[in-house]
């Protein structure tokens, strides 16, 4: 072996998310039965699986919107299980996009995007505004800056929600079925924005039913069922030669 240790360390992928033995129960129902995985910097991981498999709950545990019962989650260097961790600091580093958009209806699009940077990160108004305009350009909605969200289509609202999350300059982005509530004709515009984000090197975890997106954009696909990761691997392996019979059964229904 001739490689220099320090060189190897620099080249080794940096884990942005590390999950060990994650358990979560709602009452008597155990929805996560021990999840172990890692997501490296700039990696795009898609989580697929039948509804009720625990995919969304798993994602929501990563920014502690959902408390978990056992296991550890380390995200962007923050240990979520440590009592000294300030959850609000963690969440500044972790952007989240929801199935139901959850844009703020009482604020214009621009104010939706500048709110958190100004109030949470204390970014000056002018800078927050510039950042918001740049993000609106990126998601193709710069002409909607002074419009209220109720005037926008679902796809446009979701793109605002993505811009809002990006305005905090997160290190990891979590997408919880971002296109499941959209009309079919607006799904594409949201996926295009997400794909561009992935190409820029954003670390992304995407819970999705869009198998085309997962195949094309993901570096790795996790198949979950009944609260466990049943199978994981490169998209081609998962979609073309799934090893586990439950993966095969699921894919035969959705593809």
């Amino acid at each position, binding site marked *: 072996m001739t490689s220099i240790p320090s060189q190897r360390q620099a080249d080794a992928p940096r884990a942005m998310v590390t999950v060990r033995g994650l358990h979560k129960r709602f009452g008597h129902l155990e929805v996560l039965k021990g999840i172990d995985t890692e997501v490296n910097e700039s990696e795009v991981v898609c989580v697929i699986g039948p509804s009720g498999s625990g995919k969304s709950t798993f994602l929501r545990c990563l920014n502690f919107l959902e408390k978990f019962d056992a296991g550890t989650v380390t995200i962007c260097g923050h240990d979520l299980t440590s009592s000294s961790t300030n959850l609000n600091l963690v*969440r500044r580093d972790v952007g989240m996009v*929801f199935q139901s958009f959850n*844009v703020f209806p009482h604020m214009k699009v621009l104010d939706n995007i500048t709110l958190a940077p100004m109030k949470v990160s204390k970014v000056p108004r002018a800078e927050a505004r510039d950042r918001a305009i740049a993000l609106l350009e990126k998601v193709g909605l710069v002409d909607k800056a002074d419009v209220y969200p109720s005037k926008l289509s679902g796809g446009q609202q979701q793109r605002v929600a993505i811009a809002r999350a990006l305005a905090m300059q997160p290190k990891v982005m979590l997408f919880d079925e971002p296109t499941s509530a959209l009309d079919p004709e607006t799904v594409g515009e949201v996926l295009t924005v997400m794909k561009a984000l992935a190409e820029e090197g954003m670390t992304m975890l995407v819970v999705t039913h869009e198998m085309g997106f997962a195949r094309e954009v993901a570096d790795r696909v996790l198949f979950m069922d009944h609260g466990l990761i049943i199978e994981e691997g490169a998209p081609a392996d998962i979609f073309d030669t799934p090893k586990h019979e439950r993966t095969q059964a699921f894919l035969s229904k959705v593809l």
Partner: protein
Amino acid sequence: MFDFGQFMPPLLRGAVLTIFLLVTSGILGTLIGLIFGIARSSSIRVVRWVASIYVNFIRGIPILIILLFIYFALPLMFPTVTFSQGVTAIAGLSIYAGAYMAEIFRGSIAAIPRGQSEAAEALGMHYLQKMRYVILPQAMKIAVPPAIGFLIALVKASSLVSVIGYTDLTRAGRIITSQNHLPLNTYVVVAALYFVISYPISLLGRWYERRLT
């Protein structure tokens, strides 16, 4: 005949005192209601519990009893504590209004979808930021119509302060009828003045609802 020159000034003075009472107890009641409405929406059980005791207790007893209690009973329990008629009237109505406003605010906060709260939290906002910038601005809009409805009811409830001797519009009318022995004329004027106070509030509510649509 009803001598307007003689009897209108005391009636108008009573109306002004009624308006003063409504403005002060309306503002104080809204503030109390906001605090207890937020407390009733709290995730901390003890806070929720304390707030719900206040709300349910006050809503369960007549405003008349609240006024009589503050004015006559409190000084018996604590001899150093005595309140003037004005302070009693304002305190009584504020405590009463606070309980109802708290229910209105609690309901309005509960009407905001959970996703709004989650989105604010996911952006790193702490509780106060979330309430201040995301939840309350939306809840306030929902609260306005029922709050206006309650305010109109408060105009009428305020007439009960006459029993502790606060010279509001109702008591001014009673004093005058004892002098002029013209209850019909006097109470028609009193009723008209109450209408003049409460109708603009209804108009305000209608204007607000039209603005929303």
